């Protein structure tokens, strides 16, 4: 099942930057683990039914406003903040 396994593509999807050493190690380990998953490909399995869902929709609570942390507590957690807002690297370039 594991043909086409591309560690560079996976790392990009997962937003991880890997060293050459890590790439070699994870490729080999993931291939070994995926080999163990072959049992799933061979098994005779039932079709997915509605009751395969983990959560019953009836358990959804009503959508009402509740207590929130507040901006002071939230910005205190942030790695960088300014004027009560979370700072991030510039997303949009200046118009030139």
């Amino acid at each position: 099942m594991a043909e086409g396994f591309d560690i560079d593509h996976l790392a990009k999807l997962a937003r991880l930057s890997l060293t050459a050493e890590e790439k070699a190690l994870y490729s080999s380990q993931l291939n070994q683990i995926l080999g163990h998953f072959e049992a799933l490909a061979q098994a005779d399995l039932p079709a997915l039914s509605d009751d395969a869902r983990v959560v019953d929709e009836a358990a959804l609570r009503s959508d009402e406003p509740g207590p929130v942390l507040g901006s002071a507590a939230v910005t205190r957690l942030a790695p960088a903040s300014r004027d009560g807002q979370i700072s991030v690297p510039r997303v949009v370039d200046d118009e030139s």
Partner: protein
Amino acid sequence: MGEVLHTLSAGELGRRLAAGTLTSRALCEALITRFKALNETVGAFTHLDQADVLAQADASDARRKAGQGRGPLEGIPVAIKDNIAVKGQPLTCSSKMLAPLVSPYDSHVAERLRAAGAILYGRLNMDEFAMGSSTENSAIRKTFNPWDLARIPGGSSGGSAAALAAGLVPLSLGSDTGGSIRQPASHCGVVGLKPTYGLISRFGLVAFASSLDQIGPMARSIEDCELLLNALASADARDMTCFGPADRAFAPSGDAKKLRIGIPKGFLGKGVAPEVAAAVNAAVAFYRAQGCAISEVELPSSDLAVPTYYVVATAEASSNLGRYDGVRYGHRSASAGTPVEMMTASRSEGFGPEVKRRILLGTFVLSAGYADAYYVRALRARAKIRGEYLAALAGVDMLLTPTVPTPAFKVGEKASDPLQLYLEDIFTIPANLAGLPALSVPCGKSGHLPVGFHLVGAPLSEAKLLAAGRLFEAAHGFAHQQAAL
């Protein structure tokens, strides 16, 4: 009296506190003294705010004096795994990603413990983001098995189990996604319960694999485990999967000697160490001698459990851990660049090797072209496994197996072989996949290392599991055991 307080059960401590022969301050001072003497050796705790503990103890003693005691946990310390939020305390998941984080709010279980008068006592070490079976994946420190300091305590709730076995605290909380309460409980000779999925709110538990994660109680005896379970189980609208009336009581009920116990065919076969098989067989013989009906049951898809689990759990983890991007909280890389570069660098610096491995695996099994072959097939296998367990449990009250195939291994022994480590969870994983309650009970030793057996029951059968555990515990000497340190 101070020198023996750490050997007493939570039940006995509660009785002494109620009788006025002990104060919470004296208890906490004794435990802090023990923490100072032993935590460097065992490594169970990653953080203990001693002044805060003593302030909580004084408040508890004052409540009791004023006739406002809040019940059997009043004044008793409960240590908490470092992935469960307690307001004002670190919440690191033993990861560099969250190292600077102090929780701004209480988890539901922390609220419940405060309401019960318990002392929220320190933060316990764990595998990073609860991913592991040895606590070696902690980015903060190693934890060692109090029964043999060269060996692992199990994981991911290794700190929770080691703290109990070392007499550092009478009660602890763990979390269990594939065995993370029960496997360390078995390795450290203590009791660990993974409750029915949905019995205890996950609000404030840092998510690993949301359809599998449960918080559960750990203790040195079944009675203490019940005490803690009763304080934790209640409905909570903030966790959409949490159900049930408030204050469900889980005292053992019925005649444990009439229980029907199923032994899954082939589970004591290959891969189980002879001493583990012997201890578990002795437990089966004990139940038979007590009058319980023992029968063999078939669980034909058991071989699918480990691959199914590692597809579902890593898929959910890769999604849940997407939130760690260095923007709102946690580690942010100093090498800024563009937002995507900042996120990628923050994640790469913040996560350890096992977390990266599982994120990559989960990303793969969900990726276009592979999701049907892996993730969807795993969901189908999960439904099949659940069906087989429920069918087996229609004919018996519970299933009995070893908790772990082998006793605790040496630190570093399996560090380079993730697949071998994943197979540690072979007996515990199905209960998570099927949402069933499961209990690990100490039942003997392999040499000097503890061994536990594992009971799995139908949804909400915690009382029966605890009754079976009590019957065994009352006839054997494994309750309240602690390693000599």
